[in-house]
């Protein structure tokens, strides 16, 4: 349904003097999403996860240049098409209640989403009420303002905004930061449900445990690129292909809890070769020469020339 290949996003900034600074925050990124599946996008902060969401929705700031292709339902996503699709065919589930207008009742905001999708006001209201019932939100919740909602209710309202649309693709951007484990599980289950209805879901998170709990496939981001796209089973099954993914898996508290030393390269000066090269134990001369291409190995995509071993 959604196919992204070789996506790069570069910001142009002017530094001291007339020197132009290029910040490449996304490099050669690939991602596909099928109807009915949850794809988790996992990576450290600064790896370009949120920007990916903004790029798909076409809401990047003006000084960003995008290259590569994004296709949605087989057709290219041009800025014009992005504008026509966003909120209707592609919907965002934001990370916190701060993404709702603090001065408007929750009910009106959710209803507005329906109206933006072409429903009449009464129809949008009926759909909203049905959606609220579905998510166990009391009828009075419509009249509440965002600041009056509890953490769990807020989460359900945010999911409701996406359900009001007929969107085939949902992008959940860090939907569970710092929440109570029960609320995290509940929210993830909602996302799973939406996928079962035939929608594609992109779950963007830094929390790999949450990702493994709900996703079908996991795309691992590093320094603005997808180093690996693996099935969820590959993690526990020891079938991981990229050294970074393996390191990430090992660093989980329930596993070895062992980190790899070093830092993600800064977008100001990315290395010429593999972006993970300076932290990798498998690194060879060939890795430093050129960026590794994306390969299909053992039923998964990986950007590592040593992944076969």
């Amino acid at each position, binding site marked *: 349904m959604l196919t992204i290949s070789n996506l790069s996003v570069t910001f142009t900034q002017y530094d001291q003097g007339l020197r132009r600074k290029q910040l490449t925050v996304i490099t050669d990124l690939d991602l596909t999403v099928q109807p009915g599946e949850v794809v988790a996008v996992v990576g450290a902060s600064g790896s370009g996860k949120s920007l990916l969401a903004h790029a798909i929705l076409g809401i990047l700031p003006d000084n960003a240049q995008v290259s590569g292709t994004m296709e949605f339902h087989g057709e290219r996503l041009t800025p014009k098409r992005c504008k026509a699709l966003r909120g209707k065919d592609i919907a965002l589930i934001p990370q916190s209640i701060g993404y709702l207008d603090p001065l408007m009742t929750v009910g009106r905001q959710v209803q507005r989403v329906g109206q933006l999708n072409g429903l009449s006001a009464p129809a949008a209201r009926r759909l909203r009420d049905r959606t609220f019932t579905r998510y166990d939100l009391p009828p009075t919740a419509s009249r509440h303002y965002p600041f009056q909602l509890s953490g769990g209710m807020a989460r359900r309202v945010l999911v409701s905004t996406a359900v009001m649309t007929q969107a085939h693709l949902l992008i959940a951007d860090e939907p569970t930061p710092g929440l109570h484990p029960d609320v995290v599980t509940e929210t993830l289950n909602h996302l799973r449900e939406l996928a079962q209805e035939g929608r594609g879901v992109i779950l963007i998170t830094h929390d790999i445990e949450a990702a493994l709990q709900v996703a079908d496939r996991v795309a691992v981001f590093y320094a603005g690129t997808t180093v690996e796209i693996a099935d969820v089973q590959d993690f526990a099954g020891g079938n991981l292909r990229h050294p970074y993914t393996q390191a*990430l898996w090992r660093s989980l508290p329930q596993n070895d809890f062992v980190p790899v030393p070093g830092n993600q390269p800064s977008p100001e000066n990315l290395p010429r070769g593999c972006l993970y090269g300076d932290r990798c134990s498998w690194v060879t001369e060939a890795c430093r020469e050129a960026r590794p291409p994306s390969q299909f190995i053992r039923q998964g995509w990986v950007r590592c020339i040593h992944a076969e071993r």
Partner: protein
Amino acid sequence: MLNGEGLWFRYGAKLPWVVRDRTLSIAPGEVIGLMAPSGHGKTTLGKLLAGYLTPTQGQITLDDQLLPSQGYCPVQLVFQNPELSVNPRWRIDQILREGYVPRPHYLKALGIHPGWMTRYPHELSGGELQRVAIARILNPNTRYLIADEMTAMLDANTQALIWQVVLDFARDHNMGLMVISHDKSLLGQLCQGQVIPC
């Protein structure tokens, strides 16, 4: 031994109690977990133990003495958001050196790049800044550390990196550690079963 006995706390005479009758203690070299959902006074309890707040009732003692009000406090606290715990107008090296000059060994282990030294806090990411915030309390005078959701906003790799360094330090210096978190597996890994529900 860091002791908190019969601790009660509220933010104002008419406000509800945030901490009610808590008693807990940490021995040198011990790692204790404190697990609870938000809104259960975990953060307040952490602030009480580190001397940021004074309990309304009860007292905190360190080896049977009250916490010193002057000089370096042997109980230190690391917050969830490093942005608030550094002066936005200071450069990184100044921030690192405020309490003590950190050992190059720890800076290296935490992956603190020498190139960061001349930058300002807003030029580092949250994960990078948190490592700076931790490096500055890795000081032999720190005998107890309260880590309040210290790595909740960080990715798994950075989380493991930070804890590895902190645990090494705790072992080498016989430092007591209280980990406040809602992450079960993290507490399981760090505290070997010593988890107190809050």
